[in-house]
């Protein structure tokens, strides 16, 4: 009877290494998917803000920034505020003030519209890991 147990993990390690390489390979593709999704969300948010008689001047301030490194990527989308920017009124457009509620569609609508397309594109990229 054996007095010890040994596991051969060499294949697991090989698989892990292979996936690590694959992740590095797909990272630029994931970044592209996020970039396309962000552009579509920005376009819808600009259209919704632009259709407001009161806040159309704020539409051009809606933009996005891509952030990330080798391990993650994110897009931050919304009206730019601060010196020289015209996005300061967006808060009132979306959420109103003490005299009335928001009059421009909540950005979550644009996010929800894009989410199924984004998920599908991301799955396609991740599916390439297995092919």
């Amino acid at each position, binding site marked *: 009877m054996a007095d010890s147990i040994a596991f051969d993990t060499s294949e697991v390690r090989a698989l892990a290494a292979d996936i690590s390489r694959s992740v590095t390979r797909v990272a630029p593709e994931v970044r592209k998917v996020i970039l396309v999704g962000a552009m579509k969300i920005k376009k819808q948010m600009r259209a919704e803000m632009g259709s407001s008689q009161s806040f159309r001047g704020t539409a051009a301030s809606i933009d996005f920034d891509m952030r990330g490194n080798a391990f993650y990527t994110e897009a931050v989308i919304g009206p730019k505020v601060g010196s020289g920017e015209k996005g300061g009124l967006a808060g009132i457009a979306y959420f*109103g*003030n003490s005299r009335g509620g928001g009059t421009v569609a909540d950005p979550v609508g644009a996010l929800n519209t894009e989410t199924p397309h984004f998920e599908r594109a991301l799955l396609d990229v991740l599916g390439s890991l297995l092919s």
Partner: protein
Amino acid sequence: MKAEVAAVKALLTGLHTVHEVTASGTLTYPYYILWSSTGNAPVERSVRSETTDIDDYVGVTTVGLTAGSVRDGAAAARAALCPSGLPSSLTVTGRVAVLTFSEARPIQADMDVSLVSGARVLYAVDLYRLVSTPA
């Protein structure tokens, strides 16, 4: 959406004055502004979903003269709409309507409104997700 908003309004009535969409005239603080769209449909529909399905947000703006009164007013609204912080069923004939607290926006001063005393009016927005389907 009309019936759902009316059900939300009924829950808030008795706490403070509830204005729909806009507040004007002589105002007594604190008060609520209840606002929403006319009712958006779910983004992803199942094959059996009805065209009358609603998946949207309802905004409750609490307006007061102090940050404390805004906090208290918002907390009272939240307790009435979603007791114990849990999703709640609205009483809407022929519909299954569920309201869930979603997001609280920061309390801020309304720089466009000042009282005779020079004080600023404060307000905060709470968003509630409303999902309503035929019963």
